[in-house]
């Protein structure tokens, strides 16, 4: 943990906690609902990684844009996408953020600056460069964030984007969410560099590594690279080391993990527990306030599920719409 966590005001701390807790409850509930057979398709949970999305997004406004990954729920919630619409989308309902046409891997809300979860690894990086280019041309100090996993950090589209962003001096941050695995393959094996700082240097940009389970460390590091980008100082790479609590996708037996690995993570590396202990331990926030937020978050998710469950499926008339804006 960094030295001065409490340069952050109390309201912001509560906001941060609310966001993290909402993501956690969202994902925990999905885990249950998938097992129950209520959720169609592939679902990749962000549980365990909440601090990163939350701390980074606190530095962004609605006009700043993010390009997300297949593991996008946390990014969506932290960027302000409506939780009910998300739950509807994940169930394929007409009430969903994308009218049920996208699903978990394609939740987007451009009005909130969320350019889409993405089923194609690395594909978000060029898109974020484009959003950053648009911001740069507007000249309003806007930035874009490209999220990418450790696995996807080996993808050509991502690597090319590092170079493009540096050459064009774009206000874009490449956040590597390093949770140690790409599916079942270890990051240590698959990413051939001593550190992401080296990879960043290979593309002429500063690189920073932080403990992604430490909200305050992420908050501070993100603040700095984002500030630099807003001021015309160009792109950076920010590696957040973190852990995912669940399998790659729901249904993953996780036999690639060490024995007791998940138990240890939940016990000793839970970013929410760590945050809670820090802010209450220092007396910055009253535990009761956090408990109240816990209850609110749970209620919000319950409501979202009820809403989504009751919502209708899209109808046959929706099948062929929304392909083009103009059909001639």
């Amino acid at each position, binding site marked *: 943990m960094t030295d001065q966590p409490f340069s952050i005001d109390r309201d912001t701390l509560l906001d941060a906690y609310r966001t993290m807790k909402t993501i956690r409850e969202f994902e925990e509930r999905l885990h249950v609902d998938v097992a129950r057979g209520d959720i169609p398709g592939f679902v990749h949970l962000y549980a365990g990684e909440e601090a990163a999305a939350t701390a980074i997004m606190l530095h962004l406004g609605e006009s700043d844009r993010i390009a997300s990954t297949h593991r996008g729920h946390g990014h969506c919630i932290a960027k302000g996408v409506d939780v009910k619409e998300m739950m509807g989308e994940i169930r*394929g309902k007409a009430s969903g953020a994308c009218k049920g046409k996208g*699903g978990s891997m394609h939740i987007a809300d451009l009005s909130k600056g969320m350019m889409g979860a993405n089923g194609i690894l690395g594909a978000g990086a060029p898109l974020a460069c484009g959003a950053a280019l648009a911001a740069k041309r507007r000249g309003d100090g806007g930035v874009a964030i490209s999220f990418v996993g450790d696995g996807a950090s080996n993808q050509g589209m991502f690597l090319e984007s590092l170079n493009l962003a540096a050459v064009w001096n774009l206000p874009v941050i490449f956040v590597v969410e390093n949770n140690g695995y790409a599916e079942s*393959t*270890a990051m240590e*094996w*698959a990413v051939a560099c001593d550190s992401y700082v080296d990879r960043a240097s290979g593309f002429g940009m500063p690189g920073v590594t932080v403990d992604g389970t430490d909200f305050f460390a992420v908050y501070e590091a993100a603040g700095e690279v984002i500030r630099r980008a807003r001021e015309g100082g160009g792109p950076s790479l920010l590696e957040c080391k973190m852990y995912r609590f669940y399998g790659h996708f729901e249904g993953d037996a996780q*036999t690639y993990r060490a024995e007791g690995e998940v138990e240890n993570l939940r016990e000793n590396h839970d970013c929410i527990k760590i945050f809670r202990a820090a802010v209450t331990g220092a007396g910055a926030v009253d535990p009761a306030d956090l408990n109240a937020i816990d209850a609110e978050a749970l209620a919000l998710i319950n409501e979202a599920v009820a809403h989504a469950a009751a919502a209708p499926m899209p109808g046959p008339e929706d099948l062929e719409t929304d392909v083009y804006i103009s059909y001639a």
Partner: protein
Amino acid sequence: MARNLSMNEAVNEALDQEMARDPAVIVMGEDISGGTGAPGEDDAWGGPLGVTKGLSVKHGDRVMDTPLSESAFIGAAIGAACSGLRPVAELMFVDFMGVCFDEIFNQAAKFRYMFGGKAETPVVIRCMAGAGFRAAAQHSQMLTPIFTHIPGLKVVFPSNAYDAKGLLIQSIRDNDPVIFFEHKNLYDTKTDVPEGLYTIPFAEANVVREGGDATIVTYGQTVQRSLDAASTLAKEGIECDVIDLRTLSPIDMDTVLESVEETGRLVCVDEANPRCSIAADVSATVTQEIFGSLKAGVRMVTAPHTPVPFSPALEDIYIPGADRIASAVRQTVAN
């Protein structure tokens, strides 16, 4: 001895037996073994749907996990194929072709021609395709017409476990680059599969039902749906030939033409999107070659001109179903 195997098991067995037979065969892909570098068990995954499970235990470092870099490892498979190996690379979902297509269509497919007949590129690229898995727009495509369009590629699409084993063995032994499709909705379907090694030649379509009133031509997941339609129609007195193409390039047009010469009526069923589809391709060739035999316009039953929707309510009507196939046949018979 034939056992009742799923297509999943049949693919695994084909890979296993060919690796045992020929030391030049290697297998690679993301998580194809799984767990490389990780603290838990090796062979942790066997591919995202477990299709290659157990191969690395038997064949060791000839089953290679890769970093998440499709251009690099598909290209490496192609380069290795030009250098004496017979790699089988897994692209996982065919939807990912967009990040490595150059190595496939500008390199592997063109080497032999560009180099004046002097290159050999015996590579197989396995990939999952098709809708019905609730996997949404970027994990559910067919894209078969795109590969079929490219000269120099062979395109294989089994509809059942028996064909999958025989066609995969053929693909591995073939000396040209082969794109081998596996429909993810067919993995669990079972047929009798012989224990031993056997091959099914390319460009030999399978007449899976004989009728005489109309011909249905298709491949993949829609073979069963076409058979279902044919059963329904039989009750109405309409008897259909149902042809499973099995390979799209090369394609066995002879079998199709023979059937249509007799029936005079053709319905082409394709789970791919409609424009420039396999359905259009077969229809156009038939019309060019044996127009005189046609008694009615060739009808096409395809997915709509849309991405694959996520919502089950939409995805279910996206895929050509037995109803739509049957009504297309009725229309062509009515003319």
